[in-house]
């Protein structure tokens, strides 16, 4: 599904912040991406999302070499990937419903064709009564769930979540993790970037991709 081969990344003329990164993400897999703050977890997620071009190496996404893709092909691939940003990236001038429906609207689909689906998903993440509310009045946990719902609405083949439990209390964190596991069991590959060791320990069998000193260590 995703394959990195000897990928390196540097900004400008600076030192490489990611070096010789080689790994793959299999279909229907579940993994944590971890490492200390500033290790490059978010950067690695951005590379997977093709939001950054690597300085060297090869990135293959859904069997396609990222270096050979045009804009339209990248857009098409991004529609197969759901992303939960650390800072949510909800649009403050849109309601929760509109934020969650955004991936469908940008495909210019008829609103009537997805309204029921969006509402059902909002109820599933516990935001059924917060559909009309704008993000500034949502709590951190509600924003997190809205961001997750937005990432899931397209039924992505791959879900990337950047510190999805960073802004919530432990009980909500566990609920969110159960949600990700449920998604994984339904066939989606999940990558969760976190530096929360306690959280990872609760899912002992999960694969761990550990970033440190710009290199990636894999613990299957």
């Amino acid at each position: 599904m995703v394959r990195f081969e000897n990928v390196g990344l540097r900004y400008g003329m600076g030192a490489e912040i990611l070096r010789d990164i080689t790994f793959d993400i299999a279909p229907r897999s579940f993994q944590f991406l971890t490492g200390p703050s500033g290790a490059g977890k978010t950067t690695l997620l951005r590379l997977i999302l093709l939001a950054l071009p690597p300085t060297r190496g090869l990135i293959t996404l859904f069997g396609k070499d990222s270096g050979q893709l045009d804009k339209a092909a990248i857009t098409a691939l991004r529609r197969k990937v759901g992303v939960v940003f650390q800072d949510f990236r909800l649009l403050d001038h849109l309601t929760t419903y509109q934020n969650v429906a955004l991936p469908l609207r940008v495909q210019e689909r008829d609103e009537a064709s997805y309204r029921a689906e969006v509402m059902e998903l909002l109820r599933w993440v516990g935001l059924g009564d917060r559909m009309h509310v704008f993000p500034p009045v949502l709590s951190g946990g509600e924003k997190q769930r809205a961001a997750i719902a937005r990432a899931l609405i397209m039924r992505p083949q791959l879900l990337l979540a950047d510190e999805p439990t960073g802004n919530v209390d432990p009980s909500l964190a566990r609920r969110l993790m159960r949600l990700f596991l449920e998604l994984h069991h339904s066939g989606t590959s999940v990558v969760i970037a976190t530096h929360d060791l306690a959280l990872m320990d609760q899912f002992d069998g999960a694969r761990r991709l550990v970033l440190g000193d710009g290199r990636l260590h894999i613990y299957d």
Partner: protein
Amino acid sequence: MTHAPDAEQARPPIESVDLADAWSHTPLVPAETVAGRALAIVIAIMTFLAALTAGFAIVLADASREWRGDVGLEMTIQVLPRAGRDIEADAASAAKIAAAFPGVAEARAFTRQQSEDLLTPWLGSGLDLSQLPTPRLIMVRRDPGKTLDEIGLRSALDSALPNAVLDNHGAWMQRLDTMAQVVVGAAAGIFILVLIALALAVGFATRGAMAGNREIIEALHFVGAADGFIARQFQFHFLRLGLRGAAAGGGAAIALFLILGFLSRHWSTSASGEQAQALFGSFSLGFSGIVSIIVISLGAALLAGLMSRAIVFHALRGFFGGKD
């Protein structure tokens, strides 16, 4: 967990609301993040200037066409006083030769008094001009439906009257034509400069709006929005602003021309009014001129939309990866 404000609570359940209209028309780029009012004013001013320039060019071109039409239908035979010749008899026979020539509708000799009156603006009134060798003029009007053999008329006059000169006003018309072309060319140049300034203003505003909405653009990209979709969000915004500004600017220009037309008609009885009317016609744009200003205004709005779209496309190329 915070709760929604009362207003939120008061809303009807989502199932009972027809969301389709509201949602599909909700702008993804917030209106308040675009310097809307200032840009609409700039577009209004630019459209006004562009319409004014084009309007004056149209008025001048129309006036020039009228001059050429009027003057082109007329020729003048000048009978010069010569020793030993009877100028009155020469003038009469020149008028007779011209009137009988095919393609001439009318040949009318000016009387001595009329010829002397033509000198009054230069020499002043109350002078006795009888001692001056005043040439006599014959106004020849072409028949617009027939062809006039100018060379034949000229040679007929030359053989009968050595002191008669036929002037078809060609040199004067040439100068008039050149002047009109220069004025219309200058107006076209100013018009193009105004449009360039308008495009640049929209370009700066678009860049500002993009910088202010970078996070939104990034979020749209990551949820799978194509560049064209994002560009349309900005284009829609700037097209709407453009329409607002262009309507104001174009409307003001049309109003100004209507007022000038009314005033020129009102003042046409005065001496200065007559001169202005002779130079610029009636100052009336006419239906085609008003349509031209409306087209210019729509063009300015369209230019704003297309310029913003082009800028967004160009900027998105630098934002994220991927070949074009």
